[in-house]
């Protein structure tokens, strides 16, 4: 049985209906929430139980703007800035994480927990956006694996 490598550009985070424009890197982190307990019944052996996960994303890319307005497939610099300034339920956005043609996709609701732009006098302007999944992050399409 052969194994298929996944090239990095085939992994993408889609926010709402759009992927980020000019993205150079996407990082996913899943951190289990672990509850530890020890009672006399444990006979001195500490027990750990996973009670949930914290899922976060970091997206890095080039700050770019569409030549035409109203693109439906990609988030440009204005879309990301607008998203970073939303509050309450408006700040929640559906997210899908694709992992190549053969991998599964996962979905959840995310909020932006950080957004920064960096622009010096000599290089292309870049941005970094941090997202955190609120609630469940569930498999929505089955991969081949």
């Amino acid at each position: 049985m052969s194994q298929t490598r996944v090239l990095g550009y085939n992994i993408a985070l889609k926010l709402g209906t759009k992927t980020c424009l000019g993205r150079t890197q996407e990082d996913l982190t899943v951190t289990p929430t672990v509850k530890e307990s020890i009672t006399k019944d444990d006979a001195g052996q500490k027990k750990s139980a996973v009670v949930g996960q914290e899922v976060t994303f970091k997206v890095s890319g080039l700050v770019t703007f569409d030549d035409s307005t109203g693109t439906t497939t990609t988030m440009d610099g204005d879309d990301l800035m607008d998203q970073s300034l939303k509050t309450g339920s408006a700040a929640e956005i559906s997210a899908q994480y694709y992992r190549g043609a053969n991998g599964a996709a996962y979905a959840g609701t995310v909020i932006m927990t950080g957004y920064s732009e960096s622009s010096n006098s000599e290089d292309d302007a870049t941005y970094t956006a941090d997202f955190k999944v609120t609630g469940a992050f569930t498999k929505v399409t089955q991969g081949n694996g």
Partner: protein
Amino acid sequence: MTDSLRDRLAYACKDVCVLALSEDEDPNYPYAVYDMTSTPMRDKDGVYGYSGDTRIRVVSNDPDEADTLAASIQSAIATGMHDEAFYSRQDDYTKECISGIWTIEMNYTLRQYADWSEPVETTSNTE
């Protein structure tokens, strides 16, 4: 996208001198030659541009002539390679003289962000 950095550099300097690759050094002073190493710039959607590390050498047996030609090339690149599609940045400038031959070396970072081809000059047949 096609790498057009070399063509655009030669086009920007066409009214100043024939800026040739180092292999085509001209035995007649003054002359200017360049070397360039270009690399594609990529994001996850593919190649969005090219970056070229460029070394330009101006050679003459007359120091004033070398200065004049180097200044003209600097001006041509500053005006001819700085728009939405191209970016230029001069990184350094050195001048030395060996055995009466003056060499000015200028290193540039050049970038290309969009396709470009040399405009076709139209000739009129009204005469």
